[in-house]
């Protein structure tokens, strides 16, 4: 599947099966929020992002309106991934049970924090939000973070 972002003139490519896997995890955790990391790589001209996999945090707190993930134990995972495949952390995903796939101010603040984080090397992390119900994913949105704003892909 390919998505395009007008704001940065960039594309995002993700396998449908990967998206389905992520959706399934979200549905299983319903009615609590859940989420994790997205990994992948950029094309040589930096205009396309290939999302290759997701990672689940080892520790997380999920409530109906809140999801908090830890990176405890994840540092080595990220390092190995880069050493072996040159794939790296490119963003985040989480669910909004019974909610829309609009990002919240908490989400935006989290993305600001991520982009400003010294150990993060990318300036435009992406955010995938899945709006889910008990049985299915109603909708999902990829957004790209840039300069204190989140801009959706189409």
């Amino acid at each position, binding site marked *: 599947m390919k998505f395009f972002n007008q704001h940065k003139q960039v594309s995002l490519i993700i396998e449908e099966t990967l998206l389905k896997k992520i959706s399934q995890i979200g549905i299983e955790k319903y009615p609590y929020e859940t989420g994790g990391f997205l990994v992948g790589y950029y094309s040589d001209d930096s205009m396309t992002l290939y999302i290759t996999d997701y990672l689940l945090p080892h520790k997380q707190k999920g*409530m109906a309106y*809140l999801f908090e993930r830890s990176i405890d134990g994840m540092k080595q995972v990220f390092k190995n991934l880069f050493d072996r495949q040159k794939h790296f952390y490119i963003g985040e995903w989480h669910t909004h049970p019974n909610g829309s796939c609009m990002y919240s101010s908490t989400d935006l603040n989290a993305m600001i924090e991520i982009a400003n984080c010294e150990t993060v090397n990318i300036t435009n992390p992406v955010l995938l939000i899945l709006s889910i119900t008990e049985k299915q994913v109603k909708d999902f949105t990829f957004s790209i973070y840039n300069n204190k704003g989140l801009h959706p892909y189409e």
Partner: protein
Amino acid sequence: MINIELLKETLKCLSFIKNINEINCEDSIIRGSIVILFDGLESSLNFRFEIYPPYPLKYHGSESIKFYNEDLISINHVMQDGSICIHNSHNTDLKQKILMDFDSLKQWIQKYYIDKENDLNYEHIVVEEGLVDENYYSYIFTDISHTFSEGDFGKVDIFPLNNAFYKDKVIQNFLVQKFVFNKSKIPCKWNSHYSNIQASEFGLFYFLDKHPAKMNKFILNNWVEFQGLVSNVFLNYLHQFEKKFLTNSKGNILPLFFGYRTVNNEIHWQVALIKIGAFPIKGEAEILLGIKTGKWNTKLISSDIQWALVRDSSYKYFFGRGTIDKSITESKILIIGLGAIGSMVAKTLTRGGCKYIDIVDYDIKEPENVCRSEYLFQSGLCDKVREIESLLIAISPFIEVTIIKKEYFELIAKMLYKDMESRSHLIANLNEYDIVFDCTTDNDLMHILEIFELTGQIINMSITNHAQELVCAFSPNIYNFVNTQFSEILNNDLEDLYEPTGCWNPTFKASYNDINTLVQFAIKHINNIYKNSKEKNNFVIGTNADELTLEIKEY
């Protein structure tokens, strides 16, 4: 502790003390008497004095030395027991204090005994507060817009406020609600809350043409002294009244209000407490030319009068010690949002003498709101508007508080503001207010109010996390100013918020003291702007690094 020798020694230094009679000490109280004579005083005067153990310090806020001369009670500043109200000064040095106090007595003699000065201030007549069945009774009244004439009498509707303790006894507090005279009701000018309470009790009133006092300052203390002051018609009425209520209400206390005029034609009331079945009256056969006419007249009998405590709580006296500017107190005010800031604004304005405050908030008060707003724990969970309404009414009997429906802004205004017809209705409604305090920190509402271009003044108040700054903006320039302050200028820490467990509603961190310091400063500044008709420039109050100085920056 003072001793007699030191006292004698010290008094010898005062040449106007011609003689020191016997001084003794009993139960730690020093009693004695002195003779005073000095130039200008025709003949010598004797004064008794009493000095209590705390001397030279004060005792219960009163002086611990007293001078008496029962022969001088007609003179100004002499109490019924002959004690003289002198002006004492503070001094902790025993000797100095003695010299100062006795010198004050001399000054009193010069001023009031020799020069017969009259003070400009009106002094209320002196009333000894009476106990009835070990209870004190108090009656609080306010202005009426009616002028009574001598001899007018009728009914007074009253209702009880809280019972409390007063000088270690139970006091029953009453509010005077209205007078019923010639079948018409004369309301006291309380707010509608106090005016609309169903009066559960009543008393009688009689309007006098002069003070019910001896020497124009001591209240009459025996009923026979009232003979001739009140009309026979009234006494007969009292008799009929007692007869009517005797069966059902025997032993009940009936407050009898005596009204009279003081300065500027103001009315003051004194309340005598009488019991049904024990009215101080008797029937006396009318005799004409030595022959009984067969008619009976009611006369007063000799018995002590129990006077109640009476307080004039009219707006002028209630707020006499200080208000905010009239241009604000007379304004019709709306407060939107009753969180920490809104509740403080509401309370401060009420204590400042404001008369019309409407309030609106859709929120519920939770126990955790109490620590930094004006809410009380005691009332549990409740709609914020309800609690603020009762709080404001509990503070001031002159405040009119109206609760605006919670959906007025949340639903109606936000839904319909784009519809031109609805908008003009909303605007017309809101234009009734002279001042609208927006304490919601709701950007949507801020936007709507701004485009409404109301005729009244909108004042928007909000604070940053940790109560670092308070931002205050005046219409018409609110939206751009407040948003730019928060997003671009002030360093509003959005990381370190208070996030209670079990709910997902983070809020800023700050204590009651933190917030109220800023709110009070802001209201002081706003008051200053109104009082001096200054430009309404937006401003930010900041706390500097050591957090001990507040700085106001006008924009």
